[in-house]
């Protein structure tokens, strides 16, 4: 691992914006943010995966993975981040390093040629180059190659130095943010600015969720100057330093970006969520307040309140028909953890009970939020499938909300399940999204397959309804 990367990781671990980090002593800080991995236990994605998750939604650049085919061959285009324009981000680019390249030390040369090929064929506004385990281990200097290529080809080449073994997915998110801070943000001026320009950080437009909330801001005259990185464009993100306020969504992923933007360009940020009516409304309120504080017209606040009143009423009227079905239903929430508090609040709003919520990747602040909103806050860390199966099997919950990996545990345990992670096919953002979430919850809970799945085959029933024994006895 290069010295530069080590420094960068140390820097990220030292992130003062991260409350989790603040609580640690020096030694612990040095050890890093992510929990130590347990060899031999099933684990999640790597830093490379995290970096790609954070950056791949930038739609118009070439995302070039420098490494053996594996990293990209197994995983390309595996998330439904929507684009309103360019589709370049859905194309998979890799240097597909062979043994020969590795033995001969040809990696850097090959990378440069690959960048050249990609630029020639696609003429993208930029190329993002991702480091991987192998190329990091053999010492390929992607930063140097990118510098060289930028110079030679006249197109910005952005090194994303987050090889898998560097750490967790979460670390990868942050290292991706560093790449934007070091190479993209602030490299370009917007054509004009307004006193109502904002950035949204940590929103990936999965299933189009950004688009669900964008009209709300537009209705208030608030311009989303850039979004990191949902439906993003390179040149847009390059101007992000001129926003008046940063909205920090899903805090742990890119907190370093928000904090450093405050440090460098004085942009205040606040953590927020688009999930659930109250949180959505709070987000709009805070945005308006901060913008007004920074010089936006005073009436923005009143207009915001009017919008909130209207949207909340409209949403509640649509939620009403489902309330009875969802009331007091027990939800087990097992997500990456990043949205836990927000989803918890949303579910409680419609009268559901939270059995527990996972806080695997939550910050202390997240946990405090959960404590504040739940009467009897059950928070769990990682739950092995077998244990989760046992909980569901004995009827601890009426429904599981989780990512795709736990789906099958729920199904085998015969409990309804709703996808709340990146593979979901519904957009749950904003007021409309909450209505969708409620509808999907009601659908999942009521699906008749759960009856079938719960009752054993009729011939396995205690009173199977036909007298095997007698028949056999007679025979």
């Amino acid at each position: 691992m290069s010295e530069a990367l080590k420094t960068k990781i140390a820097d990220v671990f030292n992130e003062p914006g991260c409350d989790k980090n603040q609580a640690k002593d020096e030694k612990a800080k040095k050890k890093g943010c992510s929990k130590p991995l347990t060899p031999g236990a099933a684990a999640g994605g790597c830093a490379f995966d995290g970096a790609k998750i954070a950056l791949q939604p930038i739609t118009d650049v070439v995302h070039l993975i420098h490494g053996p085919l594996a990293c990209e061959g197994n995983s390309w285009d595996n998330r439904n981040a929507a684009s309103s324009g360019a589709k370049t981000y859905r194309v998979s680019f890799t240097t597909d390093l062979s043994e020969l390249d590795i033995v001969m030390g040809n990696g850097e040369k090959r990378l440069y040629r690959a960048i050249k090929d990609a630029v020639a064929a696609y003429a993208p506004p930029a190329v993002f180059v991702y480091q991987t385990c192998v190329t990091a281990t053999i010492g390929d200097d992607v930063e140097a190659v990118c510098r060289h290529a930028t110079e030679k080809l006249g197109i910005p080449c952005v090194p994303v130095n987050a090889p898998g073994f560097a750490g967790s997915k979460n670390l990868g998110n942050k290292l991706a943010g560093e790449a934007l801070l070091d190479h993209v943000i602030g490299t370009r001026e917007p054509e004009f600015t307004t006193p109502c320009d904002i950035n949204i950080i940590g929103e990936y437009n999965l299933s189009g969720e950004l688009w669900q909330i964008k009209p709300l801001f537009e209705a208030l005259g608030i311009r989303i100057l850039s979004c990191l990185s949902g439906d993003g464009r390179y040149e847009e993100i390059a101007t992000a330093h001129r926003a008046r306020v940063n909205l920090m969504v899903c805090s742990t992923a890119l907190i370093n970006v928000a904090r450093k933007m405050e440090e460098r360009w004085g942009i205040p940020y606040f953590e927020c969520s688009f999930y659930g009516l109250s949180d959505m409304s709070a987000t709009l309120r805070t945005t308006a307040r901060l913008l007004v504080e920074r010089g936006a017209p005073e009436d923005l606040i009143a207009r915001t309140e009017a919008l909130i009143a209207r949207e909340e009423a409209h949403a509640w009227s649509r939620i009403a028909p489902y309330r009875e079905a969802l009331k007091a239903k027990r939800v087990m929430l097992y997500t990456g953890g990043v949205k836990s508090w927000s989803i918890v609040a949303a579910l409680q709003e419609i009268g559901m009970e939270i059995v527990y919520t996972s806080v695997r990747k939550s910050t202390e602040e997240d946990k405090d939020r959960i404590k504040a909103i739940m009467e009897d806050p059950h928070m769990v860390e990682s739950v092995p499938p077998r244990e989760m199966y046992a909980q569901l099997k004995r009827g601890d919950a009426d429904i599981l909300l989780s990512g795709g990996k736990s789906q099958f545990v729920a199904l085998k345990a015969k409990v309804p399940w709703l996808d709340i992670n990146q593979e979901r096919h519904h957009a749950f953002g904003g007021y409309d999204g909450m209505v969708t979430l409620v509808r999907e919850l009601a659908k999942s809970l009521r699906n008749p397959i759960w009856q079938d799945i719960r009752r054993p085959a009729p011939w396995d029933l205690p009173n199977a309804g036909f007298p095997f024994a007698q028949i056999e006895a007679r025979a």
Partner: protein
Amino acid sequence: MPQSAEKVLDHAPLFREPEYREMLAKKKALFEGMPADDVVQKTSDWTKSWEYREKNFAREALTVNPAKACQPLGAVFVAAGFEKTMSFVHGSQGCVAYYRSHLSRHFKEPCSAVSSSMTEDAAVFGGLNNMIDGLANTYALYAPKMIAVSTTCMAEVIGDDLQSFILNAKAKGSVPQDYDVPFAHTPAFVGSHVTGYDNMLKGIVEHFWKGQERTAGTAINIIPGFDGFAVGNNRELKRMLDLMEVEYTILSDVADQFDTPSDGEYRMYDGGTTIEAAKAALNAKATLSMQEYCTTKTLDYAAGFGQETASFHYPMGIGGTDDFLMKVAEVTGKEIPDALTKERGRLIDAMADSQAWLHGKTYAIYGDPDFVYAMARFILETGGEPKHCLATNGNKAWEAQMQALFESSPYGASCKAWGGKDLWHLRSLMATEPVDLLIGNSYGKYLERDLDTPLIRLTFPIFDRHHHHRFPLWGYQGGLRLLVTLLDKIFDKLDGETIEAGVTDYSYDLTR
């Protein structure tokens, strides 16, 4: 309770409502960096030209949209076909997450595999401790009967020696001394998932066979190879062999592991080749492989013990199934029963009924080398032309085999095999030399969109259709399914083209 209080739209139609369309269009129009629609169109057209094709084929350092995965994926797959076996991938933890989600999304089943979670430190000092702790944890947490160890590329680059690491771990008590821990080195920068399948399978049989004495028996071994349709195919295979009254062992049978029922029992493991069967497989009369490229080393190893060996290219259709059954009959001395002869006759009958609809249709086919071979062979049997045959993990030898296949039929004259090429190459081929139909996996849907060529999903991975893999493609029964799949797509397309009332529906016929 009403289904909905008012119309609630899924996200696909949602963003086509007027207010959203305007918003999205505005972003496109206003955003400076985005070229105008006509420029985009012009660029798109250019990428479909012969000129671009030549440029595209001149690429040498860049792979775009590869149609292959890496060795450890194959290793994880083959290990899943043994009884209560946990895959342990030595290296960084992220890779394993990919394998699990890849297999899980395709089979719609949970998939277990662990890694040794190597980090920076391990990269510098070697991963021995990770192996020691990892095996111990795996043994304790998941109670497998066997742990199959493979490697990610990082472990390979730093040169970790699995054999000595495992010995070390056993010495440290991670697992009992006599516990089965077969292993294979599976570097991702060599070959692809089919190579990994071969390496890991060889690792497993070597673990059981090495140093043993073979007493030749009458049973045979069959190796299915890496196969997204394994659930349906392996069961069909067993049905045919049972009909022939052949004694056999399937070496790595994932059918039950990737198709567990919802019956109230949580199965981390289900089905698979038992350890006893794997051991006894040494005494088989012969080992037959359903996929040559998945088993080169394993078959060599088996041959070294004096077993007869033979391999096929994912036998499908009439000729493919004939060859396979004939070989089984030859090796075992068993007759092929009337039931199979009748199934054969029925498949031929169905193909003849429908031949006019298939004759002369042109295809692009991509996937693993053995699959592409089989698919092309079946297409030739229907009177179609498999014009573009592409395998990112195909090599020169494969190209030569394909060429020989093409030369065996008058319909192969304009066909060509492309080894080592990717789906972006295929895009150029299809843009410059269009075909009627595309056969591949879910990734082909972008080619379907860009080139308006209907996609038929017949190989791994299939993420956007459900449960297809539960039906067989092998055997005469599988051939019938293949046939119907092709025909359905052809008829769907024709109906789609003739459905416009008053414009094209003069051909919207009731009988086809």
